């Protein structure tokens, strides 16, 4: 049976402009094994805010029974989350959804990881697992501006890492797709997570197979409320981002 757990905050810090990194400890970590899955968080008792908030799992430390999230403070939910201090509890439903599949990779594949903004975090656990399985990774991370950049160092440790900023204040100027084009980056497959326009551009430009992680406003997070559906490309049906995704094979759904 699935569970929810009041997990304990073990660390909380700012790592970029409005970007926080927070680690939680608890039993649910033992079942967090697919990179790209997310948790659905209740950041407060009571009704303000009412709904849970979906946040990706950024990295997992099974030994310590902790996992880490990286999130941007947007509105009331993420703001309240950012106020949680070590020792306080956060109610966690998860891990939810289907993550980035790695089973079908040939051994020693080379994977291109493309992340934009708060789409970067789930790629980090993916990068760790890919490299530990003997694959190699190249990361292309896009941000708005210099002060928004995070986790460049972490990714660099796992493979070549390129950073793009929209205003050119750090790394390459432009979008991730510009960098990919300019540096002619490629691989056996790609994994991408970020804003819709980025995913659209990647999907239509990349000649190699790939996987896209989608975002959608959610209610239940578990597939029951039908808030988060997206259309399939080639059939009449639909997919739920929360339970069928958030990761889909490029070409499967309408981005």
């Amino acid at each position, binding site marked *: *049976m699935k569970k929810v757990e009041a997990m304990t905050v073990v660390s909380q810090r700012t790592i970029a402009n409005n970007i926080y990194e927070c680690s939680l400890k608890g039993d649910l970590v033992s079942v967090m094994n697919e990179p790209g899955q997310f948790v659905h968080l209740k950041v407060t008792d009571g*009704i303000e805010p*009412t709904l849970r908030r979906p946040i990706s799992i950024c990295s997992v430390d099974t030994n310590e029974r902790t996992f880490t999230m990286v999130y941007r403070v947007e509105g009331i939910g993420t703001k309240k989350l950012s106020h949680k201090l070590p020792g306080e509890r956060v109610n966690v439903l998860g891990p939810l959804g289907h993550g980035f599949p790695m089973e079908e990779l040939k051994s020693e594949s080379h994977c291109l990881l493309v992340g934009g903004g708060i789409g970067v975090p789930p790629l980090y656990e993916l990068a760790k697992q890919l490299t530990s399985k003997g694959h190699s990774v190249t990361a292309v991370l896009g941000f708005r501006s210099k002060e928004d950049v995070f986790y460049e160092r972490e990714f660099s440790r796992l493979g070549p890492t390129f950073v793009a900023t929209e205003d050119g204040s750090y790394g390459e100027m432009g979008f991730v797709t510009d960098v990919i084009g300019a540096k002619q980056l490629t691989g056996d497959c790609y994994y991408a997570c970020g804003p819709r326009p980025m995913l659209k551009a990647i999907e239509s430009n990349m000649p190699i197979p790939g996987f896209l992680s989608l975002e*959608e*406003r959610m*209610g*239940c*997070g578990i597939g029951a*409320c*039908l808030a988060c559906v997206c259309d399939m490309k080639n059939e009449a049906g639909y997919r739920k981002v929360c339970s069928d995704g958030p990761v889909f094979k490029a070409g499967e759904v309408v981005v």
Partner: protein
Amino acid sequence: MKMNVSLPGLDLKNPIMPASGCFGFGKEYSEFYDLSKLGAICVKAVSPLMKRGNPTPRVAETPGGMLNAIGLQNPGLESVMENELPWLERFDVPIIVNIAGNTIEEYMDVARVVSKAPNVKAVELNISCPNVKEGGIAFGTDPYIAKELTARVKDVCHVPVYVKLSPNVTDIVTIAKAVEEGGADGLSMINTLLGMRLDLKTGKPILANETGGLSGSAIKPVAVRMIYTVSQQVSIPIIGMGGVTNADDALELILAGASAVAVGTQNFVDPFACPTIIEELEEKLKDYHVDHIGELTGRSWRPSLQPLTTR
């Protein structure tokens, strides 16, 4: 046996059930607990044919509540009969099928068929969905149409018929009485209030459908007053819903006049909402001078010489 409730067609172990649209067809929540614990399950609206629903975003949050504009997406009657209802047979729990249609005939078509499924003990006519262009809410705002619809569905339906009322009306009592006259076996109230949110950056509605249905804590006082008013004017039982998050909220709806209580939005907040409320409610009953939960129904207006609580 303080908690069981007997309603037309429905022998409930306890008065708590998930509300339509907030529990799918049960599969997802069955991964959290044994659905046999529930008083009943009210499944997502079923229409004759598969419905794709509205474009996304389909939900937006509001203070103390949420808006949804799912638009009655569902796999359609045939698939529900073949896949969803048989799957639910593994649980010892009565099923209520929520029905949506664009025409009276469509409601009849679905009712005729689903009411033959062995575990379907009642149907609920959704004449109050604010998120579809045709049917839905139109049936719920005109007492003549509401009565006619109820009567025609009654003719073809093999199980008792509950009619789910819209709160977006000037005079809910008139509608309630009309469907009672039409032969309804019970009422479900309330569906969502019409609402809307704007994105302050773009200035546009957050929901692709523009407006949506408001549910959650914010609407509980509206539900209480409607159940309180209607329960004094009709003699058929009411399944109450609207903003129930805990046992106290459920009690409030029961005292107002509900015989059973459905939990909607709170399932999203806490997947264990229903079983938790069932446990807490049983515990709370100890504070009340009653042998049976049914005695609390309508106690806000029903005369009684005894004090309500032991405290």
